[in-house]
């Protein structure tokens, strides 16, 4: 079909002026919007009030619907668990026996560690968790990777605080509303976490690639220091993230870089725990001078 004759001006002055004003508003709007993007580039927390209100309003909608989704997906898992229950039971009992021995060994190690740390005068300030909140949604379109947490600034959540689940690190708080906040997931391109490989103690920097995977770059020169299956834990360097939180598992090694996947899947966890920002001990206690 032929398109309708577009924006026919005719002879009416009023219509002509109206059209012209529309274009002027549009162009001015584009300039203002571009300026806003520019401001956001230099200060990502700009326009915090408007964004906070939007987070709160969105969380209200999402939180209600999330209940239904969880119930449905839980029902699927529970029905699946009935099949193969006997084999699974036996397998779990064997696993439990092994794990119990490991747990006892770990308890002994913890005791020994605390004793050695006392001897070496190492003081750690590992903060207790601030609160646990429900993860209710995430950006499923677009390039940024955010999740929404059902706790906001009235609960004491502040931008920058690390968020983790039982399985491992999830990310950190990006911006807060009153009752909900946006979590910058590890997989976002803006996220960088200093990590350490417990296998050999190599320090590395981990950043998101935006597609669900992570990239790990070693901070030491030469040699392939990563192996497939390696576990990465936070090193605590520079603060924010407390040390020894499990983060990711390496799935592929490319020279001195490696691709990893996060241990904590935000889609599978219900609750996430928010921690205060970790501040590493700034200076070591001076050793006692020998008399």
């Amino acid at each position, binding site marked *: 079909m032929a398109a309708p004759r577009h924006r026919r001006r005719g002879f009416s002055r009023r219509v002509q002026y109206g059209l012209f004003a529309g274009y002027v*508003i549009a162009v001015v709007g584009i300039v203002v919007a571009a300026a*806003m993007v520019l401001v956001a580039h230099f200060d990502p927390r700009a326009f915090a009030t408007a964004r906070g209100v939007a987070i709160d309003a*969105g969380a209200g909608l*999402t939180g209600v619907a999330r209940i239904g989704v969880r119930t449905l997906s839980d029902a699927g898992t529970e029905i699946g668990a009935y099949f193969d229950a006997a084999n699974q039971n036996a397998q779990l009992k064997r696993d439990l026996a092994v794990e119990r021995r490991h747990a006892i060994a770990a308890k002994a190690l913890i005791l020994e560690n605390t004793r050695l740390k006392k001897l070496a005068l190492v003081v750690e300030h590992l903060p207790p968790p601030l609160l646990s909140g429900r993860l209710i949604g995430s950006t499923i379109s677009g390039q940024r990777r955010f999740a929404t947490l059902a706790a906001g600034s009235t609960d004491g959540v502040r931008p920058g605080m690390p968020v983790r689940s039982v399985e491992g690190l999830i990310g950190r708080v990006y911006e807060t509303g009153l009752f909900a906040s946006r979590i910058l997931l590890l997989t976002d391109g803006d996220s960088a976490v200093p990590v350490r490989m417990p296998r050999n103690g190599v320090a590395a920097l981990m950043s998101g690639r935006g597609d669900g995977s992570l990239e790990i770059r070693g901070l030491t020169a030469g040699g392939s220091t990563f192996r497939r299956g390696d576990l990465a834990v936070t090193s605590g360097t520079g603060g924010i993230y407390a040390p020894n939180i499990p983060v990711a598992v390496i799935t592929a090694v490319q020279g001195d870089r490696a691709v990893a996947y996060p241990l904590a899947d935000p889609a599978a966890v219900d609750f996430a725990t928010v921690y205060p920002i970790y501040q590493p001990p700034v200076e070591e206690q001076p050793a006692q001078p020998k008399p």
Partner: protein
Amino acid sequence: MMPPRFAPEILRGPAKPLWVPILSTIAGSAVCLLPIVATSPALPPFGLLMLLSWRLLRPEMWPASMALALGFADDLMSGHFLGTSMALWTVALLALDWVDHHMVWRDYWMEWVIATVAIVAIQTGAWFLNHRPGMTDTLANILPTVILGILAFPMLVRVTAMLDRWRLRL
């Protein structure tokens, strides 16, 4: 589409033809509030698709500046830097005005081609506007949403047409 028997006041009064397109576009942007937690982009940009299909169906309905308000709502919900969709969507509507001025005939396939160009351009533009130096994501990440968006567009044209018929019914 059956008209809802108990539609809110705003969708029954004389303002119905005005509000249905606006609210349906905002609802498209709000799809990203659905309670799905995902670590990689998995859905097409519904807000943009609704905007394009309304604009191609009713070229005279909105001035280009309407995209400022709709883009603002989209930015707030998607978590992009404020202003990204505002700027890009308005530019797109201005460009479509220009296209309409120069193109006399426009059929279904042509509209799909126009929408394809717009989706690719806007998603790429949004990536560049949101990419700060030091960020490690690549342009290839927007590929799934772009492809899904192009494939979903004809469906949304049907939805828009249905809403349009309901909107103009007395």
